[in-house]
């Protein structure tokens, strides 16, 4: 592979050294490509990727998603350079996987990190301008003295709109996204609009058919949100609704015209706050620094449950690894005797739970452990009424048992393989040295076994630390602790706790959820790194 080692490609960065394909000496770039079948396949594939990429660039640019535009542009250049260059062999094999890795792992991890420093979540999910609009809309009311306009409901495709005749007798047209504006395309007959070019006018019966949509539609009166909107309670008359809130862009304040309260935009918390400290419901996304992290540890409503969940997560992960490895190793040793008849049958039967999809296992066990009707209580225990899933401690045991059922076959497979790869001569040597079998197990088998299985035990620990399926599908993290100030249950591990924060209740707290995700990562990564260092597994690997 000398041709590749002379010019290394940088594979640890998304962009290999750029170099226009045609710059090398000797003939045009085209004539130097070999016209093999493989080349044409490559050409078609890269052309497809280019076409998709260019479409993406245009689509993203239209929506002003500049991050996506930049990523796609760089990715396209990289793909073309790599595949039409005669060098960079390793990059040809690495680029496809790396592109996916960059978007769906590296980027989302960085994005998780960034979100952890914001107040992103319900009530804080957009920009300040959107928040202003939302606040004004929420507080719109029909003014008692507001003018009324003859109104016609119009339809184009799926989009509803209003056509009104203003006080000067001119036609105006608008939709939910486009404020009312004068138009020459409308026909006005008898003081109301009867037709608009490019739109269908709805008759009374048609309006009745979609009355919910029609009555909910609000068409902004003008570009200024303070002017309010036009709505119709009957499909034939439009009234102006004006917000009781007034937005003063210059001062950055919102004033409640009914009560006179003034709310000032507070960029620290991302909300409009009045002098007495009340916040308006809708805020916007701001950078809050380490607030989410400090909240986890110092906010009294959060810190207690968090520590409880953290301890149980450790207990769950460690006990899961210990029990599955214990039973798996035990069974591997039991069946590692050449004279046991039916070893092959036993082995293939033992790994059946491993083949049973994990989500089904959890759901099936949920039925079996049901207190009143479940198989375990009703049949195996002869009608006992043990609250397997509703008692905090029994639920923890249940989760561990179900995870043991799921996990021991994998350990059994690994240990079987590892046992078979231990050279038998060392046992001969041990025997000559006078070692008893138990001593041989402790001093020869275990150390050799651990050398080869330690990396797998670490990854098993990391896996169980985040074993969402077993916990969520068996108990949903419950039984819930009703006395706790936040939504948390007895079997919740950190990852299901994050799920509750982000998607669980009425108040989605993405920022806080991401902060807990980052904490989980720090914990798992430091434990793994420390253990790997100890076992020198990395050196072995590379």
């Amino acid at each position: 592979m000398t041709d590749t080692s002379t010019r290394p490609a940088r594979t640890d960065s998304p962009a290999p050294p750029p170099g226009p394909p045609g710059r090398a000496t000797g003939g045009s770039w085209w004539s130097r490509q070999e016209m093999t079948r493989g080349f044409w396949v490559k050409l078609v594939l890269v052309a497809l990727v280019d076409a998709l990429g260019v479409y993406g660039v245009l689509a993203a640019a239209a929506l002003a998603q500049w991050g996506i535009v930049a990523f796609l542009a760089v990715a396209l250049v990289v793909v073309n350079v790599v595949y039409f260059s005669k060098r960079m062999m390793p990059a040809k094999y690495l680029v496809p996987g790396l592109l996916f890795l960059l978007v769906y792992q590296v980027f989302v991890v960085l994005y998780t990190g960034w979100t952890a420093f914001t107040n992103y979540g319900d009530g804080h999910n957009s920009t300040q301008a959107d928040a202003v609009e939302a606040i004004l809309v929420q507080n719109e009311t029909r003014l008692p003295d507001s003018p009324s306009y003859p109104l016609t409901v119009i339809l184009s495709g799926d989009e509803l709109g209003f056509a009104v005749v203003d006080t000067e007798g001119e036609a105006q047209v608008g939709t939910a996204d486009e404020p009312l504006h004068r138009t020459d395309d409308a026909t006005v007959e008898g003081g109301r609009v009867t037709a608009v070019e490019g739109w269908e006018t709805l008759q009374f019966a048609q309006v009745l058919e979609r009355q919910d949509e029609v009555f909910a539609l609000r068409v902004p009166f003008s570009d200024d949100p303070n002017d309010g909107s036009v709505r119709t309670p009957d499909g034939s008359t439009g009234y102006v609704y004006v917000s009781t809130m007034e937005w003063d862009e210059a001062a950055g304040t919102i004033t409640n015209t009914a009560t006179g309260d003034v709310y000032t935009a507070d960029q620290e918390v991302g909300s409009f706050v009045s002098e007495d400290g009340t916040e308006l419901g809708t805020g916007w996304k701001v950078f809050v620094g380490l607030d989410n992290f400090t909240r986890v540890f110092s906010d009294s409503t959060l810190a207690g449950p968090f520590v409880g969940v953290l301890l149980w997560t450790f207990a769950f992960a460690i006990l899961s690894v210990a029990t599955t490895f214990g039973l798996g190793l035990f069974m591997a040793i039991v069946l590692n005797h050449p004279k046991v008849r039916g070893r092959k049958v036993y082995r293939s039967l033992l790994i059946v739970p491993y083949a049973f999809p994990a989500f089904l296992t959890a759901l099936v066990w949920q039925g079996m452990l049901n207190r009143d009707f479940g198989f375990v209580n009703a049949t195996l225990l002869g009608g006992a009424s043990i609250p397997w899933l509703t008692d905090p401690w029994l639920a923890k045991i249940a989760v561990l048992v179900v995870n043991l059922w799921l996990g021991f076959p994998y350990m059994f497979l690994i240990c079987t393989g590892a046992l078979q790869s231990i050279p038998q001569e060392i046992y001969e040597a041990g025997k000559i040295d006078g070692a008893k079998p138990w001593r041989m197990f402790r001093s020869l088998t275990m150390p050799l076994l651990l050398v080869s299985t330690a990396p797998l035990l670490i990854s098993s620990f990391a896996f169980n630390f985040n074993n969402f399926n077993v916990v969520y599908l068996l108990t949903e993290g419950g039984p819930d602790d009703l006395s706790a100030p936040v939504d948390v249950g007895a079997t919740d591990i950190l990852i299901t706790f994050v799920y509750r924060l982000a998607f669980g209740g009425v108040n989605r707290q993405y920022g806080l959820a991401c902060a807990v995700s980052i904490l989980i990562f720090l914990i798992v990564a430091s434990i793994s790194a420390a253990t790997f260092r100890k076992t020198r597994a990395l050196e072995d690997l590379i």
Partner: protein
Amino acid sequence: MAATTLPPTSTDATVPVQRDTTPKGLRWWRELGWRHVVTVAVLAFAFVPILYVVSSSLNPTGSLTGSNRLFSSISFDNYVELLTDPVHPYARWFVNTIVIATTTSVGTVLLGAAAAYAFSRFRFAGRRGGLLSLLLVQMFPQVLAYVAIFLLLVTLRDVFPAIGLGSQLGLILVYLGGALGVNTYLMYGFFNTVPKELDEAAKIDGASHAQIFFGIILRLVAPILAVVGLLSFVGVFSDFLIASIVLVDPDAQTLPVGLYQYVSQRFSEYWGVFAAGAVLAAIPVVLLFQFLQRYIVSGLTTGAVKG
């Protein structure tokens, strides 16, 4: 640890048992008999849930209580109801899951094998660093970043509706983001066991890089490809978390998402129908495992374990 309770004879398959004067039956028991008893006991633990769910699925009463006497009566009513229920499109879930899992595992195998090949066969700057950073990235698993995945897909929905929130293709792409990582390590170890002289000989014979990779190497590493493909298939097949976030429309959902809702909405009285769904869902995976068993054992042990 359970292993510490082992009787001494367990580890030494090759060390001859000392000649003693104990009766033959007792000797058989001490050497082999207890192994059968222990194995049968563990097998009972392993099979009770499976027998139970199969029995429930065949029980026409269909409720949780009615399912407690194993195989007391047998009919296929639950299966019929499962496949004809208009509210829960089980057949659609099934097809969705198979399509998503198959596409993902094929993609994962190709992407992972290509990367592992590069790391195993080429020497380039950043190779060691690349391997290390793969390991590091892998320590932050996708399941931890699901909030960000959700937010990313919300944005992508506006730009590329085909790969945004709610799309199955989008879900597949998310899964392919994890194609490198642990898989690359498993494969890397295995690729290293294939002698380099093979590809060098092929090169001298005039084979192109693509021919060497697809025609020679991929065939020689088939066991590890089977393992990675299977693990990825099963992983996707069982994934509840990301699938439940991405797939919103009931017709687009996968088995875990659909069956979970089935259970959470109407638990005990529809138990039989759920059990039928569980049995059908388990069949393809169990079959695949039996079919690929010899590859799994050799793949897991060769790739992961340094003998």
